[in-house]
C-alpha cells in the first residue's frame, strides 16, 4: 500500500493552522510546529514497523507519542494510568510488543524488551517523518477483573464517527474531556481535536475539580465530554458557574433525563448530546434532542456504516467503527458469525424510543426477579434534590436480597431529608415494580467512581 492510501494523525497537523495547542495543567504544547519536533529519544527510523507499548505517566506525553508514532509503527498499545503492572507481561506477550515508550526508562531496563525509548519534554527539533503504514491502535477493555482484553482498532475505524459528523462549525473547537485519552471515550475526543483542526485541554490526575474547571474556562474550552458520573460530580461541586462550553457530551454510562436536564440548566447556551460507544463496538450514535434513550429508527438499517439490532434485549452492533479483533490468546471472538458485536447493554422499547436499562452483567437478583440497578437510579435521580445515586442489592434473611440505594442530595437539602426520602420512595412506587423499590435509602456524601469515570458497582 502506498502512503497515499494511508492516513495518519500527522496528516491533520501542520503549520497551516496557527494557534492550536495541546495542554495539561503544567504544560502547553503548540500543535502548529509539532511535526518538526519530537518528545522521543529514538533515532530516525528506529520505530518503523515496531510493536510499541505506550506506557507514560501523563496524558500529554501519551498524546504526543501517539502523534509521533502513528503511521510509523506496526501497532501501539495504549496503557491507561491505572493499569495493574502485574498484567504487563501478559499484555506484552499477547500484543507481541518489542518496544516501550516510557518516561521511566529505569523501570524497563530488565524487562527484556528490545528497545526502551524515553519520552520527555522539552520537545527537540527533528526532521518531519513520513507516514509509512496504517498502524494498529490497541486499547484495553475496562471494567473486567483480571487481565484486560486487548482490542484492535485502526485509525480509520476510530475516526468513523468523527468523519461522519463533519467538521465543527465556526471557530476551531477547543476540546476537553474528563476521561483519560488512553481510554476509548477520551481517545475519541483527542482524535476529534486533532482531526478537526482544534486544540485540546487534558485532565490532570490529582487536580481538584474546581481548579480543573477554572483551567477549562481559562483555556477557552468550547467542547467537552465525560461520563454522566463525571458530569454529576461537576454539577454537585458548584464549579460550573463561569464555564460556558458550546457543546457538552456524555458517554460511557446511561445518560438519564435528570443529568441531561441538569446540564441543560447549568449550560443554557450549550447543546447537550449523549453518545453511545464501547471500546469493542466503537461509536454507535449520538443523540442530540435532549432526551434520554434513542429513537427506535436508529435500530435497523445501516447508517454511516453502523447497523444495530436488538436480540434478547441487548443491543448488537455491526459497524465499520468496531474493533477488528481481540488481540492475543485470551480474547475470544469479538463478533458473532454475522459480524455483530454484542454490547451487553440492555435496552427496552417504549413507544418510538429505546431506553437503556442496564448492563447484562450488572443485573441483581431480588427474590428470583432480575433488576437492573440503573433503572432504579434513573427514577431516584429524577427528584430535584438528588444529584447522584447508586442502587444495589443487600442480603435479606427474608427474601434472599432486597434493593437498597445510596443517594447524594443537592447542597442544602439535608434538613428536608425525611420528606425527600418519602418523595423518592413515592416516585419509585409510581414507576417501578414493588420488588425494585428500594427498601432502604441512605443519604451519603460521596459515591465511588472508577478510574474510567463510571459509578463503581462492587456488587455488579
Amino acid at each position, binding site marked *: 500500500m502506498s502512503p497515499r492510501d494511508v492516513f495518519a494523525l500527522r496528516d491533520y497537523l501542520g503549520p497551516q493552522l496557527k494557534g492550536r495547542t495541546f495542554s495539561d495543567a503544567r504544560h502547553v504544547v503548540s500543535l502548529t510546529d509539532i511535526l518538526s519536533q519530537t518528545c522521543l529519544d529514538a533515532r530516525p527510523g528506529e520505530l518503523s514497523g515496531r510493536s510499541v507499548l505506550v506506557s507514560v505517566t501523563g496524558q500529554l506525553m501519551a498524546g504526543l507519542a501517539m502523534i509521533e508514532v502513528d503511521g510509523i509503527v506496526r501497532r501501539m498499545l495504549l496503557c491507561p494510568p491505572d493499569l495493574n503492572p502485574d498484567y504487563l507481561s501478559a499484555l506484552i506477550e499477547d500484543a507481541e510488543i518489542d518496544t516501550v515508550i516510557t518516561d521511566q526508562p529505569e523501570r524497563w531496563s530488565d524487562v527484556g524488551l528490545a528497545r526502551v525509548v524515553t519520552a520527555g519534554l522539552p520537545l527537540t527539533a527533528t526532521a518531519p517523518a513520513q507516514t509509512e503504514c496504517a498502524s494498529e491502535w490497541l486499547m484495553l477493555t475496562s471494567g473486567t477483573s483480571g487481565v484486560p482484553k486487548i482490542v484492535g482498532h485502526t485509525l480509520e475505524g476510530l475516526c468513523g464517527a468523527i468523519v461522519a459528523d463533519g467538521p465543527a462549525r465556526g471557530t476551531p473547537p477547543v476540546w476537553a474531556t474528563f476521561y483519560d485519552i488512553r481510554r476509548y471515550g477520551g481517545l475519541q475526543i483527542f482524535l476529534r481535536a486533532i482531526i478537526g483542526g482544534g486544540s485540546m485541554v487534558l485532565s490532570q490526575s490529582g487536580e481538584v475539580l474546581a481548579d480543573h474547571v477554572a483551567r477549562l474556562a481559562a483555556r477557552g474550552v468550547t467542547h467537552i465530554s465525560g461520563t454522566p458520573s463525571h458530569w454529576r460530580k461537576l454539577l454537585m461541586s458548584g464549579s460550573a458557574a463561569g464555564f460556558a462550553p458550546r457543546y457538552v457530551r456524555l458517554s460511557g454510562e446511561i445518560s438519564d433525563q435528570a443529568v441531561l436536564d441538569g446540564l441543560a440548566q447549568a449550560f443554557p447556551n450549550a447543546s447537550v448530546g449523549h453518545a453511545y460507544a464501547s471500546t469493542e463496538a466503537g461509536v454507535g450514535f449520538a443523540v442530540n434532542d435532549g432526551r434520554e434513550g434513542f429513537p427506535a429508527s436508529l435500530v435497523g438499517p445501516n447508517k454511516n456504516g453502523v447497523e444495530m439490532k436488538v436480540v434478547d434485549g441487548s443491543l448488537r452492533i455491526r459497524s465499520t467503527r468496531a474493533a477488528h479483533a481481540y488481540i492475543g490468546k485470551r480474547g475470544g471472538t469479538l463478533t458473532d458469525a454475522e459480524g455483530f458485536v454484542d454490547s451487553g447493554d440492555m435496552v427496552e422499547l417504549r413507544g418510538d424510543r429505546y431506553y437503556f436499562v442496564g448492563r447484562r452483567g450488572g443485573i441483581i437478583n431480588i*427474590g428470583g426477579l432480575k433488576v437492573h440497578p440503573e433503572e432504579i437510579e434513573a427514577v431516584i435521580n429524577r427528584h430535584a434534590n438528588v444529584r447522584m445515586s447508586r442502587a444495589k442489592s443487600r442480603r435479606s*434473611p427474608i427474601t434472599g436480597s432486597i434493593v437498597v440505594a445510596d443517594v447524594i442530595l443537592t447542597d442544602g437539602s439535608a434538613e428536608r431529608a425525611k420528606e425527600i426520602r418519602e418523595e423518592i420512595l413515592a416516585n419509585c412506587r409510581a414507576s417501578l415494580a414493588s420488588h425494585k423499590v428500594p*427498601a432502604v435509602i441512605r443519604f451519603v456524601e460521596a459515591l465511588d467512581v472508577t478510574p474510567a469515570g463510571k459509578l463503581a458497582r462492587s456488587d455488579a
Partner: protein
Amino acid sequence: MSVRLRVIAAMKQIAEEQQVKLPPLTDELSLHETGFDSLAFAILVARLEDDLGIDPFTISEDAAFPLTVGDFVRAYENVPA
C-alpha cells in the same frame, strides 16, 4: 425510644408506604394477619438493622422466624448488645 416502639414505628411507616392497612398491633397478633408480605418484612428487617444495628434473623442460623408480633419484637429485645 424503646426497641418495641421503634419496631412498631417502622412497621407503621412501611404499612403506609406499602398501602397495607394494619390491624391493632397486639403481641398476640400473628404476623400473617398484619397484612405484610415477605417483601414488607424484608424491608422491615433491613431498616431495623440500620436503626438498631442488629439483625436477629441472620445472627442465629437456627432462629425460627417469629409467628406473632410479640415474638418479633422480642427477637430484637433479646439480642445481646
